[in-house]
């Protein structure tokens, strides 16, 4: 069994960079999943992962251990995602092209659902695309609670620490987000 998060934090503070590397490698995939779910852009998600851990290292002196390390790191990542979204929303994008080349993912047409094999390979990519679209259409607050709960398995108390809002707010946002997704994805469930 490896070192605990707190042990690795202590060792990092004492100058052990390998200890911090272990923390990064332990949580980078989880942070990447959250960032990708929030931002829907791979480059931005990778940026957020890198910025999250850089910021975590710079702020490690302020981490008191009263919350779990991973909820603290999730909070940094969530705030960075919100910053990214605010910056992108404000500015029209510059272009390098006289005409935009044809882009966009290929359309995958799927047959109707077969009750005996709900998740066969041919349908998986279409289902995944629709689910990701439905999540992307949620507001950032609702998207965050769904991702932290369904993807990361955080408890309501942990989610409220990450999002810095009351537990009751977490529950009502989760309720709303799930009902929205159910409405959009009913025939897939």
């Amino acid at each position, binding site marked *: 069994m490896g070192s605990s998060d707190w042990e690795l934090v202590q060792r990092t503070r004492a100058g052990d960079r390998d200890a911090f590397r272990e923390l*990064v490698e332990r949580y980078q995939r989880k942070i990447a999943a959250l960032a990708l779910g929030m931002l829907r852009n791979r480059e931005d998600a990778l940026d957020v992962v890198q910025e999250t851990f850089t910021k975590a290292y710079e702020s490690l002196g302020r981490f008191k251990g009263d919350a779990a390390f991973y909820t603290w790191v999730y909070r940094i990542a969530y705030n960075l995602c919100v910053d990214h979204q605010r910056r992108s929303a404000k500015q029209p994008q510059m272009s390098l092209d006289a005409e935009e080349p044809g882009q966009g993912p290929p359309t995958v047409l799927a047959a109707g659902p077969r009750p005996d094999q709900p998740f066969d390979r041919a349908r998986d990519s279409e289902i995944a695309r629709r689910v990701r679209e439905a999540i992307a259409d949620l507001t950032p607050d609702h998207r965050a609670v769904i991702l932290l709960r369904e993807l990361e398995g955080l408890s*309501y108390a942990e989610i409220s620490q990450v999002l810095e809002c009351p537990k009751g707010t977490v529950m009502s946002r989760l309720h709303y987000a799930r009902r929205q997704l159910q409405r959009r994805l009913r025939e897939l469930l």
Partner: protein
Amino acid sequence: MSAERVMTCAEVEGLLDAFVDAELPAPALLAVARHAGGCEACDAAVRELTALREVVERSVVVEAEALDLARVWPVVSQGVERHDARVEWRRRLRTVPAWGVALAVAASAVLWLRSPEPEPARLAAAPRRNQAVIERIDSSGHFELRRDRKYGTTLIMVSDQAGQ
């Protein structure tokens, strides 16, 4: 809430999310489970919430697992080094006398002014849509012509170091 009392569908509906997330205290958990076991509608609602979690997890996790995270640590490591260097610099600044700082700045300037070996110019790929055609080019120093493979965007990169 008494574990003995049978709950109504309306009461269960408000607790479904917490039930599926195992966030209810044990007596309430049992009461909801007992009701759902005997109510088709509430049982279907529980199954749908569980299926939603599975479908969300599969859709987002698969995408995240495809991300190449190999470059995360190298970039973070650079950030860590810069941070440690800044901290160390601030610490030394408090202890080293002013003439020592001036010497260090002068030494850094000498190192910075040293020029690396020039690299041979790279040739551009064949012209495509959305690019510039260079009909003539001259430079007082080293330059490179680059083209984006995907879009054909042209970049002329020049060195700003004198004498190159």
